[in-house]
């Protein structure tokens, strides 16, 4: 599904990723752990099409050169990024935004767009599954949401858009224990349908709920070690400095 080879990225001449390699197959869950500033968010941003990076290397998504696609086209093709810091968008109603987004993607795929009633039904159902307070959907996007609510809103968007590849950038940071479980349930529901995940986290706990197939350690812009779920436990005990 996703194949990253020799990816390097610089910003303002500062090297952030170097010779980065990763392959994710359909239905797989990969976790990336790494110290602050190691380049995890940079990787997520580059995959979803944020501008401003000086990028080299190759990324194939379902055999298409990812860099030939605009940001929105990547979303149309099924890439989703749950932001580490979801943005507040004043004056934009959350429901309206969700509907605009879903229909933009449907339209690009040549699928039938949802009308207001169909959309509301879908959004209600998903909000209920994720225990997301429906009242918040009538508010301005992320404005006045708590940190955890913003994160949950990202997962709600993910569930509605049903992406093939979801990148979760520290979605677990700031979630309470119950919220962590509902978020994991949301991920696992999508996972059943052969969708893939790249989960960035600092904590082993999330991986208890979402069993990863692979765990990678990112340091200084490179994957220095890969393994199974046990690697996360080892990291938790030893810390990044003593891994290897």
């Amino acid at each position, binding site marked *: 599904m996703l194949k990253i080879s020799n990816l390097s990225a610089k910003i303002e001449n500062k090297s952030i990723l170097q010779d980065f390699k990763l392959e994710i197959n359909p239905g797989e869950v990969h976790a990336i752990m790494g110290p602050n500033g190691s380049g995890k968010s940079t990787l997520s941003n580059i995959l979803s099409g944020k501008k401003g990076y000086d990028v080299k290397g190759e990324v194939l998504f379902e055999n298409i050169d990812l860099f030939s696609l605009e940001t929105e086209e990547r979303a149309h093709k099924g890439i989703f990024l749950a932001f580490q810091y979801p943005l507040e968008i004043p004056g*934009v109603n959350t429901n309206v935004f969700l509907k605009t987004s879903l229909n933009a993607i449907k339209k690009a795929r040549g699928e039938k767009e949802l009308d207001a009633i169909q959309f509301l039904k879908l959004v209600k159902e998903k909000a209920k599954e994720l225990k997301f307070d429906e009242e918040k959907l009538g508010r301005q996007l992320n404005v006045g949401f708590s940190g955890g609510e913003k994160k949950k809103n990202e997962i709600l968007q993910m569930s509605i858009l049903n992406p093939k590849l979801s990148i979760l950038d520290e979605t677990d940071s700031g979630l309470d224990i119950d919220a962590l479980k509902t978020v994991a349930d949301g991920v696992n529901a999508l996972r059943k349908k052969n969708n893939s995940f790249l989960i960035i986290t600092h904590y082993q706990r999330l991986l208890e709920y979402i069993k990863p197939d692979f765990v990678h350690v990112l340091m200084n812009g490179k994957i220095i070690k890969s393994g199974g779920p046990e690697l996360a436990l080892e990291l938790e005990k030893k810390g990044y400095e003593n891994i290897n």
Partner: protein
Amino acid sequence: MEEQLKIDFEKNLKDFSYSDQEKKFKETNFKEFLKQGFPNRKLENWKFSDLNQIIQSNIGELTFYNDYKKENQIDKIELISELEHNKIIIVDGKIEKIDFKFEDQDKIEVLVEQGEENIRENINSLINLNNAFSNKFCKIIIKKNYSLKKPLVIYHSTNKNTQFKNTNLRIDFKLNENACLRLIDIFKDNSEKNFLNIYYNFEIDKSSILKNYKIDKSINNNVKYSYNNVKQQVNSISETFILSSGSKFFKNEINCDLLGQHSSAFVNGIFDLDDENHHEIKSNINHLVENTKSYQLVKSVLEKKSKAVYQGKIFVSSEAQKTDGYQLSNAILLSENSEFNAKPELEIYADDVKCSHGSSSGSLDENSIFYLMSRGLNYKEAKKLLINGFLLDVIEKITDEEIKNLIKNLLGVKE
């Protein structure tokens, strides 16, 4: 220009048999205009624009004579279809039609007279120009306790062949006690390169409400100036909303005298500018007695080489204790060449007041754009959504639902 002015003024006088008093009024105003000329940057209120220069570069040589005896076609004027309304249709400064068909006819009085009112104050040279050249004064009086059932729309239009001309219009409004008027000004030009000069006088008696919405949305190459002079008595409310967009140059001045306790004035506006358009709002809110309130919010979205100026003044006299005055302006600059100038002025002589002002400008937030695009919206859609979101709070200040929706439609704000 002076030669032309004199010729046109004489021609104008000859067209009608004015009484001596009227003639004197016009002549006094004409002389005053000749003396002062068009306003320029030396005046505090015109710090950011020299009208002479603006006229020269957008129109060229102006002429001032208007044939008010001529009947203008009005059947081609595009009317608003979204809401039922009373209407006044104006072509080239001449009132062609007054129609209050939705109202109790005995509750509204329309006086049309030729410049018999004495000049009460010397406001500025453009008002002198207006008084010298405008046709009949129209005075609209709303009787006590009457709220108009439907809004009144004033259509400002120009004839196809009205080029290089200055046209003037003056209307006076009086809202007697506990009356209510919703007034929409719509600007629709059929011609290019002219200069429209409007002067409205509002007397708002005790407990009356005036809502004035000025909509300049259709694109045109004209220069416009509008002055609202508002005098408010006890418990009265004035709400002014300006959608400033389509004209080449448009300056709206709002002068509001809060003369009665518990009166309040709201001035809100949007500059939605493209190309090299240059628009301004100048407000003077004069808090003259205790317990009055004013609120102003102006938002700008500026493309290309456009320029917006907001000069908001709050004046609080020494008697005006417990004044509540607020003004804020925010601008999004969509190009490096666009320009926003905000010049808040606070002149406060009372000590127990609550006054504040603020202003900000910046470009569209790229991170927000990325967020929206990562959800499948293309750049244009993302930009539109962000701009609509930015404008939402000022649109929400419009207290009339019907008119709010009309303006939302004009701006393409969905939902």
